């Protein structure tokens, strides 16, 4: 028993001294809180790719915690990161919003950044990327590649972020192919690969020939590959799961954004703000096209991409009708960010319901 106790004391002492040594080198410590396992190829994975890039810098050390349940537990995780003296903490799921604000109040010197929410405080900023711009472009690819004019969309939960993605995708489809329809199936899971694959197969069974997804697993891609259909990925380039099917994917690239935030914190110029950058900043993009996408399709989409980057084209600009055909956005008007954040209706061309 005595030996054991000694061992523990030693272990504790070691960890403390390691912490002291780190302080001496004046490196900046960054914490990441993820909602799902990092190996999911989805949302958390996209953040972790950037974290790994940051880690390559010798003066930055990063720490992460995966699969942190939103709710009471997340507050403790954020709290312990703050206690360990991290300089900047990224909390990357909507449910972390209130816990982040609560912890931030107790640690005014630590910078917090919360993704996908809408609240800020003296030391909490929020950020997200306009991934819907990428969605729109992938929708164009899907609209041009479909032969049956039927596109399937495997979606997770009916929350504004997902609805916004479906709407942008459908606008993209309709922009190049007014006859095409987008059929939505809700799985009510973020991550159940087998179930999400089944959901995609069910769409393929009713005759869609392109599968898009808002899920964290590559299940739907697998289904498209098995059935010889096309697929559109999300979060990261998913072509390795479906080399024959994968047309293109809407992807995140958090590296430049995170590097900039780290730099600001180091220089002391960091300001809490609501940051919602789009394609022009490189935070969102589309992956390289699959080899089956013909040159003219690429050209059409690339041209629109350039217009979006240059600010000449706005995705949610009128006229936009809803599912019932009612005009929701007047010609010449655009939807405000506020309206985008709380989207709860489908645009014309979506077949499916909101629950």
């Amino acid at each position, binding site marked *: 028993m005595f030996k*054991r106790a000694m*061992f*523990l004391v030693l*272990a*504790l002492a*070691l*960890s403390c001294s390691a912490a002291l040594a780190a302080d001496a080198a004046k490196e900046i410590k960054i914490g990441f809180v993820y909602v799902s*396992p*990092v*190996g999911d190829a989805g949302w958390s994975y996209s953040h972790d790719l950037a974290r790994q890039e940051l880690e390559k810098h010798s003066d930055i050390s990063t*720490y*992460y*915690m*995966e*699969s*942190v*349940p*939103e*709710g*009471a*537990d997340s*507050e*403790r*995780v954020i*709290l*312990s*990161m703050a*206690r*360990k003296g991290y300089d900047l903490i990224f909390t990357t799921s*909507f*449910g972390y919003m*209130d816990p982040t604000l609560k912890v931030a109040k107790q640690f005014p010197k630590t910078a917090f950044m919360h993704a996908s929410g*809408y609240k800020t405080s003296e030391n909490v900023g929020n950020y997200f990327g306009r991934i819907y711009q990428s969605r729109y472009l992938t929708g164009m690819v899907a609209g041009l590649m479909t032969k049956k004019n039927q596109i399937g969309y495997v979606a997770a*939960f*009916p*929350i*504004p972020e997902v609805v916004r993605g479906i709407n942008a995708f459908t606008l993209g489809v309709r922009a190049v192919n007014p006859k095409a329809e987008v059929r939505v199936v809700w799985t*009510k899971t973020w991550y159940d690969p087998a179930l999400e694959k089944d959901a995609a197969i069910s769409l393929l069974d009713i005759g869609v020939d392109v599968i898009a997804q808002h899920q964290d697993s590559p299940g739907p891609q697998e289904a498209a590959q098995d059935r010889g259909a096309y697929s559109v990925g999300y979060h990261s380039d998913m072509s390795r799961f479906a080399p024959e099917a994968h047309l293109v994917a809407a992807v995140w690239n958090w590296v430049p954004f995170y590097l900039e935030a780290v730099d600001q914190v180091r220089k002391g110029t960091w300001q809490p703000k609501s940051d919602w950058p789009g394609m022009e900043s490189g935070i969102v993009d589309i992956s390289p096209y699959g080899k089956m996408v013909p040159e003219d399709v690429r050209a059409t989409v690339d041209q629109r991409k350039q217009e979006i980057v240059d600010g000449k084209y706005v995705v949610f600009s009128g006229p936009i009708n809803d599912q019932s055909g009612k005009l929701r956005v007047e010609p010449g008007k655009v939807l405000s960010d506020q309206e985008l*954040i*709380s*989207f*709860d209706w489908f645009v014309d061309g979506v077949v499916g319901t909101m*629950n």
Partner: protein
Amino acid sequence: MMSGWRIVSRTEPREWGSVVIFAAAFALSLLICGLLLQVQGKDGALGVGLLLSGGFGHLYSYGETLLKAIPIFLCSLGVALCFRLQIWNIGAEGQYVIGTLGGTWFVLTFASLPGWLLLPGMLISAMLAGGFWACVSAVLRQRFGMNEIISTLMLNYIGIEILKYLIYGPWRDPAAMNFPVSPYFSDSAVIAQIWNSSFWLDFGLSENIVDVMAQLCGRAHWGILSCLIAGCLCSFFLQKTRLGYEITAAGSNAKAARFAGIPYSRLVILVMFICGALAGLAGIQECSATLERLEPHIVVGYGYTAVVVAWLAKLRTVRIAFFAIILAGLRVGVENVQLELQVSNSFANTLEGIILITVLAGQFFNDYSLKRKFS
């Protein structure tokens, strides 16, 4: 069963021996976890140290551990009561959920009530809802002969789905940008944290003490009072009242109890109701004190942990408190391991599973002894 050895039931329970057995099983499971860390190229000994220091080694560990122990304790207390009557209620999870719904319903419907009505109303409404949900299983069992393990398990899933339906539908807060969360509870429906730094500062306490106390108490809330009350009442009920005696008696022999005129069916419904009420209380306190509104993430499996805790504690109240704190501390501590060693989150489950299995197996040596067989 075993050649050369005979298994003999102990007539007297081990006293201090049981502590030694628990410690041995616990140490064994820590050893296995250390080895598992080594398998993935991490420092196992350091990992175990981080685990223990995270849960129990810092000033601020205790508040967090206590916070997590509250719902586990309450659920487990109720489950243990059912187990005493040989009712295998594994539905504390569902009762916890339905309790939260009952409490939330009250808060959302009567938001304008004064605080002295709103808070008790919320708690009572939660307890009634949880109790009612548990009674469904009790009635199914007594009236229709349905196995309670099955019905409570099924009702757990159904309860969680009802929660999802409400939170994605009627109870969705329009002010929260259509995210699946309920509106915030009004301030008077929020259970306060035990340590209120600004109050004590105004009171004239020195800043150092306030700071230390704030760290020590952390997020622990006044729900701890309900644990003390419920624990004392339960002990008193079981040991000093006729009804409590009947429960223990009926649990050890249902048929004999019926002959003795003990109303068995009513006892079943009563203990199930109490269990559901306690689980519901745990649910609404967790909701009100930590999140201040209803979110789908309120469901984290405390109900299942409660079954395990009740069993490990052999249904005894003080031991339930002990095991609730141990398990809560481990869950808090394992986050420290994850953060420092960057192991995947599944390590937490593995650890908990191993501890449960070794301690469960170890209890054998409490109840039985091995004697050499002489032939």
